[in-house]
Each structure stands twice: as C-alpha cells, then as structure tokens.
C-alpha cells in the first residue's frame, strides 16, 4: 500500500514539474499558433544559468529562479522579435523551422562553450532533504518545485481569466485583427506572450538544478513531453496542461513501477495516442 502511495506521489510531483515546463509552450502555441521548437533548449539555458549562478556566485536555486525566469523571459522576447515575428504570415512551417534552427544553435552553443559535461550543484539548500512519513519519502526539491508549479500556473490562469491584459491576450489569440481594432497592440502582446512562455520554462529550469544534472541534451526529452502535454491538454489551456501533465506523470510512474521501467514512455505515448484519437482538440481544447 505504501509503495502504491509512494509511486502515486512520485508521479504527481513529476507531473507538476512537467506542467510548469509545458505551460509556457501551451501559452505560446495557444495564442500565436506557433510551435516553439526551442522550448526544451530554453529549459536547458535556464538550468545552465542557475548552475553557474550557484557554482560561481553561490546563489541557491531557491533564489536564483527569479534570474532564470527573467533571463528566459528576455530570451523568449528576443526570439519573438528577431526570429518568430519575421516568419509570421509566411509559410506555416516557417516559425517551426526557424525555432528548430534556434534550438540547434542553443544546444551547440552550450556544447561548445560549456562542454558536454554533466554538471550538478553539490550543496543546495534543498538537495538531499526529504520528508519521511513511515515508508513514504518525499524529496523536498521535488515538492518545492511542484508547489512552485502550482503557484505559477494559478497566477497565469488568474492573469488570463481575470485581468484586462489576460482578456487582451485571449482576444489576440481568437482574432488578432479584431483585437487590433480594439486598440490592442498585438505585436506587443505576442512579444509578451513569448516572454511569459519563456519565463515559465525558465523558472522550471532554475528550480530543476536543485536535483537534476545540467548538460546540453537535458532539454530534449522535456521538450518532447511538453509537446505531448500541450496537445493532450488542449492548445492554450492552462488547466488542460496541468491535467495532461499530471496524467503523464502518473502514467509514467505507475507503468514504470507496475509494468516495467522500460515500458514507461511506451505507456505515456500510448495514452497520448488514445486521448488524441478520442478527443483531437485535447482535454480542455476549444
């Protein structure tokens, strides 16, 4: 029984982390209809920043996530201004290919500058701390990341649903020309959305360094899982992303433990396929 609870908890916490990674992608995809192929690499860049801040300046990830979030916000905004905005209105594949190029550039840049070495922060405030309740162990870094994820997703949801800025973002997503007629500077909204999407994944990356090694390839699988989550949850839907992420986390953990670890991604992709066939617009899709 306690093993079951432990597996569930592990899945839940992994899912919450995935949700934070996916939220930014979902936002960008939902508002702009653009797939940011460099999303996983944004995560990697945030992790490197957090790592170097921890390693050189001894700033703990629990504080430096602010810097990671801000840095990737700017990275996202620049990506929009100099890459994506030039592709919009051209062929549908153009932004995809352009951000794919960006992802290769970022990966190879980090490979070149920082070498492919695996780097881990050795002593962080959270590292190795855990709650032990009987047989159940909850790692503090995972828990904190999970709670952060919930808090940020909630903030994002509130922003989108309850503020004029959020309505303006939604309006831009639904009909950018009509939004323009309301006096909404849609170009500015896109810039902001790309930045916000970056900030979410930046914060996730910043916190991840508490327990995960950084290397140039670290973003690849996270990026892929984020795509699944966004497609499963419904493009642009924050609650959808959270629900889909938790489903993926749980499926991964349960299949990994009760069937076979090597089966876990098989199960994840199978669930994805089934869900997408049953509901092509995703769980919370429009």
């Amino acid at each position, binding site marked *: 029984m306690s*093993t079951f609870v*432990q*597996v569930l908890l*592990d*899945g839940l916490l*992994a899912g919450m982390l*995935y949700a934070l990674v996916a939220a930014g992608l979902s936002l960008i995809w939902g508002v702009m209809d653009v797939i940011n192929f460099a999303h996983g690499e944004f995560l990697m860049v945030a992790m490197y920043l957090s790592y170097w801040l921890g390693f050189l300046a001894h700033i703990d990830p629990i504080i430096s996530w602010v810097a990671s979030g801000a840095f990737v916000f700017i990275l996202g905004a620049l990506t929009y201004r100099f890459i994506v905005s030039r592709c919009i209105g051209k062929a549908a594949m153009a932004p995809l290919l352009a951000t794919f190029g960006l992802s290769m*550039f970022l*990966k*190879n840049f980090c*490979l*070149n500058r920082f*070498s*492919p*070495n*695996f*780097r*881990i922060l*050795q002593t962080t405030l959270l590292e*190795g701390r*855990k709650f*032990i309740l009987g047989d159940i*162990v909850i*790692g503090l870094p*995972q828990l904190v990341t999970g709670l952060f994820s919930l808090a940020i997703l909630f903030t994002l949801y509130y922003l989108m649903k309850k503020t004029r800025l959020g309505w303006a973002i939604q309006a831009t997503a639904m009909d950018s020309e009509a939004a323009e007629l309301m006096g909404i500077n849609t170009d500015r909204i896109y810039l902001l959305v790309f930045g916000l999407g970056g900030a979410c994944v930046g914060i996730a990356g910043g916190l991840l360094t508490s*327990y*995960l*090694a950084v*290397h*140039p*390839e*670290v973003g*690849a*699988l*996270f990026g892929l*899982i984020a795509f699944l989550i966004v497609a499963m949850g419904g493009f642009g839907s924050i609650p959808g992303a959270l629900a889909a992420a938790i489903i993926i986390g749980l499926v*991964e*953990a349960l*299949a*990994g*433990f009760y069937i*076979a*670890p*090597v089966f*876990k*991604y098989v199960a994840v992709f199978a669930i994805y396929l089934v869900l997408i066939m049953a509901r092509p617009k995703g769980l919370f899709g429009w």
Partner: protein
Amino acid sequence: MQKHKVLSVVSLLVFSLLLSAGCAPAAENVLKIGVLFPLTGPCATAGQRCVAAVETAAEVINNKHPELDVPLAKQQGILKGTKIQLIVADTQGKPDVAKSEAERLVNQEGVYTIIGSYNSSASKPASAVTERSKKLFMCGCSSSAALTDRDFKYFYRLAPTDKTESKEFVEYIEWLNKNQKAGIKTIGLIYENTEFGKHAADEGKAAAKAAGFEIVADVAFNPGATNLNSEVQTLKAKNPDAVFGACLGGDYTLWVRTMKQMNWLPNVVLNYCTGYQDPKIAQQLAADGNFFMGGTGYSPEIGAKYMKKVAAVEKIYTKKVGVPFDSDSIQEAVALFILAQAIEKAGSLDVEKVAEVLRTTTFDSPLSLGGKVAFGPGGQNMKATSIITQLHNGKYMPVYPASYAEIKATVPMTPWDKR
C-alpha cells in the same frame, strides 16, 4: 536589407566555427586515420575525451619525445617518417550515423583505419563497414562481448568485455561473502535499454546465475530520462543485496541522486564501464558517489602504482581536456599505439600483413594494465584486465583482486542517513 546580409554572414560564420573540428593541414607522407566517436549527444563528454586520447597518442608517435618511455616516442612518425593524420567524425551516439560516417571516412576520406566508437551500438555497424572494405577497425573501449563474437578479420578490441567484467564481479561477490561475510544472495540489475546495456545485463545475469545467485530485479530504462523514480522504486521494492549497474553519464548521476532521495542503497553496487569511471562525474557527485564500485582499467592512483610510464603521456592529454585519463579514454590511446606498432613491425601498410602481425604478436603496452596486449579469436585483447575499485572521496581505490587491493572495501555501503 543590409542588416539581413550581415546577419546571414554572421550566422554562416558561427556555423562554420561549429563545424570546423577535424580539419588538419595535409602533409606529405601521411597516414589518414578515422577517429569516430560521439562528439554530440548524451555521450559527448566521453567521446571527446576518447578523441583527445587518440590525439595524444598521435602526438607522441608523430613527434620526437625522448623523455617518454613508450613505444615509438623516440622516433618521428612510423615507417621512417610517415605521419599520422587524424580525421575526426561524430557518431552522435547513434548506430545509423556511425554507419554512414564510417562509410564516408572509408570511401570519401580514404582513411586507412578507423578508431572508435565508444558506444558498442555504434562500433558494431561502423566496424561492419570497415570489415567489408577490408580496412582495420581498432576499438578501444566498447565493451559488448558480441563485438568479438563475430569472427571479424579486421576488428581488434582492447578493453575487457562485459563478459569478463561480469565474471569478475561475481567472483568478487563470492570473495566478499567468504572474506568479509557480506552475505550477498540476491542480485539486481539496472541498465540502459541499448546494445551496450542489454548485453552487459545479459552477461551479468548469466554469470550470476551460473554462480547460484538469485536475480530479483531486472530494470532496463531509456537513456536520457527525465527521472528514474520508477526504476529506483522497483529496485527498492525488490531490495537486492547487490546491484550491477550500466548507466552512462547523466543517467548515472540521476540514478545515484534518486537512490539518495528515496533513501535506499543495496549492500554493494558494481558498475560496468559507465558514469562511474568518469572522474568529472565522481567529482560532481562528491560524497554521494562514495562506496560505489566498478571495474577500472585505469585511474591516476592505479597508474602511479602499476603503470608508472603513463604519467608523462598523461600530461599531454590533461592539457587538452583538464582531467586525467580514465579507463575508457586510455584504451583509445592504446588502440592507436598498438596499430602503429603493428604497422612498424609489418614494415608496410599492407592491411593483410598488419592484420597478421596484430593476430600473432604480443605487444608491449605501457598504457595497459598488465603491460601487454595480445589479440585472440575475434580480435579480443586476451590480456585485458580490470581491477575493481571503490570510490572514496573522488579517488578510485583498488579493492580486488587481492593482489592489487589497497583498502578493505566498505561493504555494506554506508547508508545515506549515516553519512
């Protein structure tokens, strides 16, 4: 418009910078050797070190190094002045890329030999290419036993195989049960779901079963995972006394960290040639890496004691990558040395003659543990040995065989909460 032009020129420049590795000026009388390793992808660190090791050997062979006491150091080049030119290529750790790059090296670059390719899964298709073209393939550290079970004529491998390592692991566990009352009865395996991992695990299971141990956990995982929770949870639930691990690079650190988070450890962990042997990873894991064990063909500690001639060569290597040789990379340097020695002895570049020399000669190899290299059937180095070490604060301390042992191994491993 002008801005666009500047931008595209700059990006082109950046790309050419990224792609410029491996372009060396051509000289007269050169022997082109393909050096095929994973330079990008999850095993890039290891691959780049392997390349640096081959470069180190080439430098020693090509230039006069009277201060070094290793074969071919005192002369310039081989066959009276032929210099070795390395053509570096990237497998990305992928079998298909390895195959196509091997074809390119053989057909377009016209290399004489390929040295590579770290991942067994990459060495396998790449060496099939050379075999068909009757070119030599010198394999340093790929450890899948299957590679030398193919009866290839032109394939030679230096490192011990998973099979020999597995036998040694089991032997050591029996020794521990006898001498340190370790009481190990059950064994678990965790390995990446690849050519290398699966073969290592198969050999491990076979060896353990033959000796009467019970296999209670058999955990394969996909490399490059975002977490290893289910994997460690499975191990924890089955609670084996000893675990054989085959986790490379980042997966190794994630595995160790996840065990720590889940507050579980077996009594003994023995690692195949993996993340354990990487000194950088040992350094990064710091105290968390302590008491893990694994097969080691080289470490500076072992070198200082049993392979005294390595240190001077190692200096050249360390200048390139910032760390000393490790069990894997040093084998790649040996691969080039042995090839050069064989060519020198054959007195010509005739592949058949050189292969004949490789098959029949016992070579002096100061960079190999034991000091000798001799190839048996299938091209396996019969003199390859490794010793089992335990990590103590970043140092690989030999614990087995008893003749090499420097400390008594900490068995069972100290639990996380008592560290």
